[in-house]
């Protein structure tokens, strides 16, 4: 399969005053298209930084980030906005859905930025919230809010879905449900979608096609999982 994401000698350095913090240190990485990838590592290892660079939310200090064959680290702000609008779907630990919009409106928001045909209602149905179309976020539980976030992300059917601790704030049952949806998204379109999940929960790793371990800003290992475990079989 073709490489969906390629990182070449990528470093990300944060500066606070005279102190430098190297979040990623000369990282090289290839992620193939259609894979369900889990990036594992302790807090501060650099996994969220990695995700943010892949998603065009942040720029590397050095090195190249290539997604779909395009070097996005050279993109302008406007190009990055278009890139995120058309290529990427984001899911966050704390959902980041807009409290002023209803469930359906939060998903329909995608229509404002993409010309791709979006079936917002179907996306909401896909995440099992068909009875909550017109509710506001503060009327939903945490798991339901996360599913709204997923619906918003998958509504435009992104080729690359990036998830930062998507189950971090959820109970095990809800977490499993969310993972199933993510897995389903990965398998859609004849398995051409790529899903990258950042987590420190090692149990999730068993369900992934590829497990990338990160520590102190370095890729420690990239492991292929020939037989990913079914999500229902994971003991949380």
């Amino acid at each position, binding site marked *: 399969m073709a490489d969906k994401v390629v990182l070449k000698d990528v470093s990300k350095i944060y500066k606070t005053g005279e102190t430098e913090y190297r979040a990623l240190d000369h990282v090289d990485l290839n992620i193939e298209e259609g894979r369900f990838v889990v990036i594992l590592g302790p807090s501060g290892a650099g996994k969220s930084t990695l995700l943010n660079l892949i998603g065009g939310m942040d720029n590397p200090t050095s090195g190249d980030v290539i997604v779909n064959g395009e070097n996005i680290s050279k993109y302008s702000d406007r190009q990055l906005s278009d890139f995120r609008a058309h290529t990427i779907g984001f899911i966050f630990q704390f959902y980041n859905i807009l409290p002023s*919009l209803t469930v359906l409106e939060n998903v329909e928001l995608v229509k404002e930025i993409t010309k791709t045909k979006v079936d917002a209602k179907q996306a909401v149905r896909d995440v099992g919230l068909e009875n909550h179309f017109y509710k506001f976020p*503060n009327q939903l539980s945490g798991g339901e809010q996360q599913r709204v976030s997923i619906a918003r992300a998958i509504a435009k059917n992104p080729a690359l879905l990036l998830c930062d601790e998507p189950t971090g704030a959820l109970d095990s049952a809800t977490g499993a449900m969310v993972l199933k949806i993510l897995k389903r998204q990965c398998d859609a379109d004849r398995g051409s979608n790529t899903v990258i999940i950042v987590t420190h929960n090692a149990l999730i790793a068993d369900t992934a096609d590829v497990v990338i371990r990160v520590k102190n800003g370095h890729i420690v290992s990239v492991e292929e999982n020939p037989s990913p475990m079914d999500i229902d079989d994971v003991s949380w």
Partner: protein
Amino acid sequence: MLIRKMLRDIISNFTQFLTIFAMVTIAMAVYVGICAYGDGMKVSGDELYAEYNLADLWLSGSEFSESDMDKIKSVEGVKEAMRYMPLSMTGTVEYADGRRESFSVPMEGVFIDTSVKTLSVNRFRVAEGKNYDPDADGLWLGRMFAEARDIHPGDIITLKYEDAEITKEVLGIISVPDHVYVTQDASVIFQQAEDYGWAYMSMRWFPQEAMYDNMIESEAIQGFLSARDSLNMMHENGMSWRDILVTQLGDMSPDVDLETALELAPDIADETAGEEKKHAFIKALNPDFNLEKAYVYPMVCVDVEGEAPGIYSGNKDDGSFEKKLDLIKRDLYEIEAVDSVTGRDMCASYSAYKSESEEGDTFSGMFTFLFLFIASLSVITTMNRFVKKQRMQIGALKALGFRNSRIYRHYISYGFFVSLIGVIVGFAVGIPSLGVNLYAEEMDFYDVPVGGLYIAEKNYIVAAVIVLMVTVVTYFSSRKILSEPAAQTLRLEVPKIKQKKKSEKPGGIMSRLSFAVKWNLRDVARSKARTVMGIVGVAGSTLLIVMAYGMEDSMLNYLDWEFSGILRFTSRLTFDSDITNVEKSDLYREYGKATTQSVAIEYYDGNGLLQTSVITVNDSEGMIALCDHDKVSHDINEGIPGSTYSDINAPGALFATEKLIKNKNLDITKKLKWHILGSDDWYESNIAAANRDPQAQQFAMTRQAFESLGEKYEPDTLYTDIDLTGVDDEDIDGVSAISTLPSLRTQMSGMLSMIQGMLGLFIVVAGALGFIIIYNMGLLSMNEKMYQFSTLKVLGFGFPKIMKIYTMQNIWITLCGIAIGLPAGYCFTDFLFVFAIGEEYDFNAHIDPSAYIIASAGTILVMAITSIVLAQSLRKIDMVASLKANE
């Protein structure tokens, strides 16, 4: 330690706290600045009046003799009395060292009773030169005129009255408590100091020849002169002088030297006699003649025992002094020579100064309230959000063992210290800026050389109330989180699940709105306090701009009303008090017969109190128009359409101004009881019509109604369409003053320039207020919504789209604020004109549409600038940091 935390917190939330600080500072500065000058005027005036003993009463009559003075002084309660003669004259100034060219201006000469050795009432405050000395050969000149014209002791002034001239050296430059504000005539609203002066001197310097002329013109002497030929004939026919005296002139003293008198009579009658002959002639007719006793004093000023209530402390008076004055007035009226008795409120100098000093009272309260209200809203929104942001810190402090009271004190101290510093800076800024400048501008018109700004106790009380209020609002804004248990505070705030009880209706109006509209509508609904603060702030800013321009427009409209609607002549000629019929006829032939007569009256108002006023008997042929309620002009003989209740030409039928009717509680269904000052004939007549006048609340009457009473119409002013610009009143016989309409209007420029200064300040404050409020509102809104904007950016929203969403709400709030601010601006301006300006004025706000356009455009401009400035941070949203921060 907590103090350090507070300081750092304030620095890191600088803009929000700056808003509170700015509002408190402006509120305090405006209040203390206006009060300092207003109270300063009052207290300084009181100081001058008390120290230099302003008279409590003024008596007028045709002449007050020594025996009249004895009677006046014997009235119970009267402490001192002094008679004097005020006279309208022309003064020519010659500088002792020729440093400037000599010039002539109208002046008032005040001639003091020769028997007065030391002034006890209306004493001089000498700025330069020596104090009053009746024997010193010279005069004392008013300070403001002297300063404006660079006149000093040693310079020479020639005062001219008719043919009489008095040339005297200036001995002193003085201020006198009853000459704090003096105008050339009643139509002058703001007298420019250099255009009109006044001087005091002893009556002994009044030209004796003028006195003789005055006596010669008396009816008795004119009768004698007419009879001189027949008397001479009798003598030639053998009749002795004594027999002629006894048989023909029985009412004359037996000691009269008839022979000498008749010998001098031809020269006297032909007006060829000099001063000596005139003296000899009068002495022959009146052997007891004593010049000093012949001086005419038509005015007396009276000092009453006890202390009159001051302007500043006046409200604290229990009314006992007024009651005492009332009793004294009644007793004084019993004296035959007394035509009228008036108090300080009828003294033009006193009432104008008092009214001006009270003008700021309404201003200060209104502006302070406005700014304080906005400050409170800022405190509510800022502290509420600030304490929420500090939730974890509060929990940590509690967990560490800090007592609730300590934490309360800590958070309350934010509001306390910011407002405390705000009021201190307000004092420090308001007094030297507003206070000093307003006081200086006022004192360009009023001669009160004592005192200065005054900081009354109430300023400190208001400062304390402001600090207390902000502190209390801070407490209530933060107490909810502060009262939570430590463990709960340490947890993240639980979302308000029940905040929205209802889901959105499918297919409702909302579903048809664009995302940006929907998002902003709901955001406004969620952040009501912030929205209200924004709207009020913008409305306040708009209001101030409308007021600034509206006040100028209203003043210009007032000028148009007065100088186009009411005064419709080109030139006005004020008659000499002793104008002859021949002179009048000449004037009528030359300039027409449009005339008026001012008649001073006393009347009983609707509350049964005796009041003093003026009736203008109007035969001006429409040159002095009367205006109806809608300011439409009418000739008095047409009546006032819609406001004429009965026959305007019936005997004594009066026109009364609407504000006079209201203020004096007059009942148009009942007859008004009044009499002409100096006459014992009381009339009862109808108020036949009501008119409006912007600057004089008084009565008017048709000539026919006046003459139907049996009164003789004796005009004192003539109006003409002929332009007499540049014509000197000395060139026209029988005329004491000439004014043209443009010159009268020009006199208002002083007042307008002063107002324009105030307006400039208004606009600066309005701009600052608008910028601070809109900036703070935008910043609050930006901070709260940053994570949402970040989310949108992550989703792929570009800067223009996010900018549009962000700006939309600011535009709404600005438009709402403008929609409220424009009418509120009108109402506040109207309120100022209706309530804050003296009783004598009656005009409303009249604001040109351009003022509304400027106010709207100005506010939108401020909004646009602040939005553009703030939106720059949207360009640089750090999505990662923002979303992390939200987590």
